[in-house]
């Protein structure tokens, strides 16, 4: 479990890199931390791994306080850092062996974990090769294997699928999903909004050290983009005229061969809306929910934070 309250970090008595971050990630859940470069994601992760001491606030990770029990936290957290951090003159196997020793695994367990992870990520054939000879994707996989070597209960992953080909990305996402199902607590920092949407149970958007939004994807969509919209598509141009709309429906947008409605209670209202359209002889081809994407939520939030107008 990860719990933070008013977590803040100031550098050189000047810049607040992180300012008042409050998060709660339960076991078996994934939080995606989104934000621009320099927004404070890495500083937040470094505080959660007890690498940086907070200037203000507190955090508990895997049951330990980050300021009082840094060693326990490091022993229970797996970190994938922004840079892969491999030693280029070590072989993949030696690298995992080295970190296995640092994490205090006995030789048998080290061997078993190393074999499993190298096999799982499809780099077992390259285990005897020097890391410097690996491709970008292989390096990323090995770094992820390192983060998982000691089978940690909490994972902090910075761009876990960056530089990976689609198959490898899928493999890593599957592994992350599997870890979630085994009750691991996971935070992912990513710029890949599709990945966040696919994996995360909750999403936090951080801007200049402050959390602007935090909640489930549905909550964020609702709060940022408003109620769900439904689009009625017609076979040809259709003049709806002064279409009488059921209560709880507003016309959001009018096109020549389509209409968009903002609907408060779709389960109740949508059948009535479809009925009234067909009653007006509308050549209805389809009636469906307009997909709301995390990208829209993110871009709109960022635009508003910067005082800009969001153009959908």
């Amino acid at each position, binding site marked *: 479990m990860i719990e933070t309250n008013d977590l803040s970090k100031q*550098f*050189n*008595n*000047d810049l607040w890199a992180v300012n008042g971050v409050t998060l709660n990630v339960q076991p078996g859940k994934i939080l995606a931390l989104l934000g621009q470069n320099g927004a404070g994601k890495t500083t937040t992760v*470094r505080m959660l*791994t007890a*690498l*940086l*001491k907070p200037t203000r606030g507190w955090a508990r990770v895997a049951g330990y306080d980050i300021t009082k029990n840094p*060693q*326990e936290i*490091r*022993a229970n*957290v797996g*970190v994938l*850092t*922004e*840079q*892969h*951090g*491999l*030693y*280029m*003159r*070590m072989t993949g196997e*030696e690298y995992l062996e*080295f*970190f296995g*020793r*640092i*994490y*205090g695994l006995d030789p048998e367990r080290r061997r078993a974990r190393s074999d499993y992870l190298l096999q799982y990520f499809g780099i077992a054939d390259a285990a005897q090769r020097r890391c410097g000879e690996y491709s970008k994707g292989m390096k990323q996989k090995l*770094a992820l294997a*390192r983060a998982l070597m000691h089978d940690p209960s909490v994972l902090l992953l910075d761009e876990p699928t960056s530089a990976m080909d689609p198959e490898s990305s899928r493999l890593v996402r599957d592994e992350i999903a599997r870890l979630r199902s085994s009750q691991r607590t996971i935070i992912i920092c990513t710029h890949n909004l599709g990945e966040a949407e696919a994996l995360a149970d909750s999403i936090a958007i951080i801007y200049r050290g402050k959390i602007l939004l935090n909640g489930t994807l549905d909550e964020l969509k609702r709060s940022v983009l408003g109620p769900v919209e439904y689009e009625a598509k017609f076979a040809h141009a259709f003049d709806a005229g002064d279409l009488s709309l059921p209560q709880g429906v507003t016309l959001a947008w009018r096109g020549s061969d389509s209409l968009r409605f903002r609907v408060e209670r779709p389960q109740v209202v949508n059948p009535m809306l479809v009925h009234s359209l067909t009653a007006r002889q509308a050549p209805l081809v389809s009636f469906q929910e307009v997909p709301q994407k995390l990208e829209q939520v993110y871009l709109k939030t960022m635009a508003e934070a910067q005082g800009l107008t969001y153009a959908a």
Partner: protein
Amino acid sequence: MQRNLSAIWMVAQREFTDQLRDWRIVVPMFLLVTLFPFIADDTTRQAVSFMNRFGGDLILDNLIPFVVLVIGFFPLSFTLVVALESFVGEKERGTIEPLLSSPIEDRHMYLGKLLVGIATPLVFSFVSIGIYLILVARRDVQFPSMYMLALILLLTFAHAVLMVSSAIVISVQATTIRAANLLASFVVVPVAFLLQGETILIFWGNEDVLWFAILGVTLLAALLVRLGLSHFRREYLLGREIDTINLKWLGRTFASRFKGQANSIKDWYRTELLQSLRQLRDPLMIVVGVGLVAGIVSYFWVVVNMPTYIDLSPERISQFRTFIAENLTNLDSLGERLPAPMLFFHNARTTIAFLLLGLVSFGTLGLTLFIGNIALVGGVLGAAQLVGYSPLLAFAVGILPHGIFELTAIFLATAATLKVGAQLVTPQPDKGLGEILLVSLADWFRVFIGIVLPLLAIAAVIEIYLTPELIKRAFPFL
């Protein structure tokens, strides 16, 4: 213990492997270690031949120990680059963060890297020295004694610890390899001077004096290791990304500490300076103790040993007294030749020198300079005794009147310098090394400006205008 050693070895082992797989380290080191002894051997042969023809026994006798010292130094200077990169290099390559995120303890990480940094150049140094000694053994030259060789090997070891420990301190503090390499001159240049000093000791011909060099270098090295361990913090390595001089912060931190909470000069003297003086109690006791010992030992050394070095027959003593009398005849015009402000400036400059030397040596060189000054006083009194003047009277009229102020000022300044050194090697988890240094300097300047300078000003006036009068009255025959 077993667990600690195992963790240190884990870090060291990886670094050893890494170094030995890097041809850019292995090849030059191999060439340096194997070729240089042959070059040195040939140089020795030619030098011996030259001196056999034209004389120069002193150089001939000590040439081989000197070359051994130099051969041992070369690999140290080369492998310094590895130590300099130890932390900042990993930071730049991005490999430090996974290591820092692991449960390995700070001291294990630090000592592991220190071990590699010291062991690698030492192995190269000793191998190089070994090859040279084998080559020299074939020649018809005087082979140095085992005692001398042991001293030089110890000195080489102390050099390795000194250089590597300072390089690692730099590596932790620097944010880029480029900055670390630039800062390396602060290691190489002083050690090169040190080497020259040790060369003088070797050619001086007194082997035992080398012990002082070994002890001095070992003490400094130990303090540097302590400094490194005290200030090594994960946060420090990751918390700073760029080296920028923040003059505003520097000025603010210094001024805030110097001024403290005081609202007026009177308030400052009453609260802040008093607090600083209270904090000087322990170092002041050390300084007073060391000063007394230095003065007394020096006095007795001169009284006991000088007669064996110089002729102190009644005629000779009479010559000495005449010489002193001639030199003190113009005491009346001392103020014209040495105005009080000049003397004040000289003494203030010496006090600053205590600080500067103390800063680069954690207070030890400042203390050494202080010991030298006090020993000089003891020596002068011893000399007075030898030529028949009362040392007590000489002290009472020649030193005490201005010494009450001057010695107090120097004792305080030295104690403050010692405190600066102590603060540098004391762990302070909430402060970075730069901040600790600034705060320590502000403390030192509090004492310097608040009390040392006024005391030195009073002392200068007394020394120029009152002391000569007292000397003339006490020794009317002068």
